[in-house]
């Protein structure tokens, strides 16, 4: 009984940790503590086979599966703090307390028969006794679990499987497409312009400048272009400031290109 009184408070605290943990990883660790303590309680109650299975299956396999999924889904993902239903947490706590109190009282009143103990049932060993039951009285249920396992494996495979709907293009096909686009629309088949490198900026989010001073938006990766709506103006603003400085200093009559809303055709006259 000493095992029980040492482990029981630990288990309750760990189970409460499951309720209050902010991060899912901490909750998983709390659950692992509960499961290992449960295994020890099984051992204390003459269930040696279940003691081993609890550690191998639950803490070994199932908790690892939980941790794998946590890694896939994002360890740092936080929970929403907003309550979807108003007062749900308090109501749940009240209902849970009421349920726990009722069940504990009911069982305290009904469980009064003397403890027989498993010495008789375990006389040939716990595993022997379990096997005898499993392959005589429960053999049909045992065979159904085999079917259940197969269905579960197939279901997991179907759910986790991602179908590739379109065949990915090979390098040869993509090169062919580029040359075809060059022949049809005259688009440049080679490597595009790289993003800008300036005195104050050296980053992939700065567009390159065309000879007339207008930023080339295609030089920035499409991902960044879609994410930062103000990107070209930002780059243009910076370059504009630099160019106006050059204009102010008037470097030996060298006219700097003007930046503006023009589409680049009128720049030649200005220069």
């Amino acid at each position: 009984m000493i095992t029980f009184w040492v482990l029981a408070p630990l288990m309750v605290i760990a189970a409460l940790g499951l309720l209050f943990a902010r991060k899912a990883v901490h909750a998983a660790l709390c659950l692992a503590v509960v499961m290992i303590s449960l295994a020890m309680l099984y051992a204390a109650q003459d269930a040696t086979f279940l003691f081993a299975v609890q550690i191998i299956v639950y803490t070994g396999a199932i908790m690892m599966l939980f941790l794998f999924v946590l890694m896939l889904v994002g360890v740092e993902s936080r929970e929403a703090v907003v309550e979807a239903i108003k007062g749900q947490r308090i109501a749940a706590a009240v209902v849970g307390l009421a349920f726990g109190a009722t069940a504990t009282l009911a069982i305290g009143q009904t469980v009064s028969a003397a403890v027989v103990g498993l010495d008789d049932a375990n006389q040939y060993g716990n595993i022997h006794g379990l096997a005898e039951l499993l392959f005589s009285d429960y053999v049909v249920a045992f065979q159904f679990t085999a079917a259940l396992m197969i269905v579960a494996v197939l279901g997991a495979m179907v759910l986790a499987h991602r179908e590739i709907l379109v065949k990915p293009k090979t390098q040869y096909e993509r090169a062919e497409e580029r040359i075809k686009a060059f022949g049809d629309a005259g688009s440049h088949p080679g490597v595009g312009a790289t993003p800008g490198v300036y005195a104050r900026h050296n980053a992939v989010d700065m567009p390159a400048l065309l000879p007339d001073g207008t930023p080339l938006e295609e030089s920035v990766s499409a991902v960044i272009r879609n994410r930062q709506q103000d990107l070209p103006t930002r780059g243009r603003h910076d370059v504009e400031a630099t160019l106006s400085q050059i204009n102010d200093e008037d470097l030996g009559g060298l006219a700097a290109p003007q930046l503006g809303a023009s589409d680049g055709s009128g720049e030649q006259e200005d220069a």
Partner: protein
Amino acid sequence: MTAYITLSMILFSIGAVGVLVRRNAIIVFMCVELMLNSTNLAFVSFARQHGNLDGQTAAFFVMVVAAAEVVIGLAIIVSIYRARRSTNVDEANLLKA
């Protein structure tokens, strides 16, 4: 004996409250596992009280079913996460009218 069953009931209640309160689908799932484990403890305790191994067999079957359930449940969570980028149970309301 009563102490074991009481502990089992306490763990079951904590698991039930967790299912109701938590919003992260994975933690909700862990709470379900806690409830299954607590019933296993009750099975094992009753097996010792009655002096036969039927309770332990039942606990064994619960473990088998729990393992299958975890595999399917986590696969569902992963596929929902792929589609919606979230494991919040409140956001999975596509079937709502």
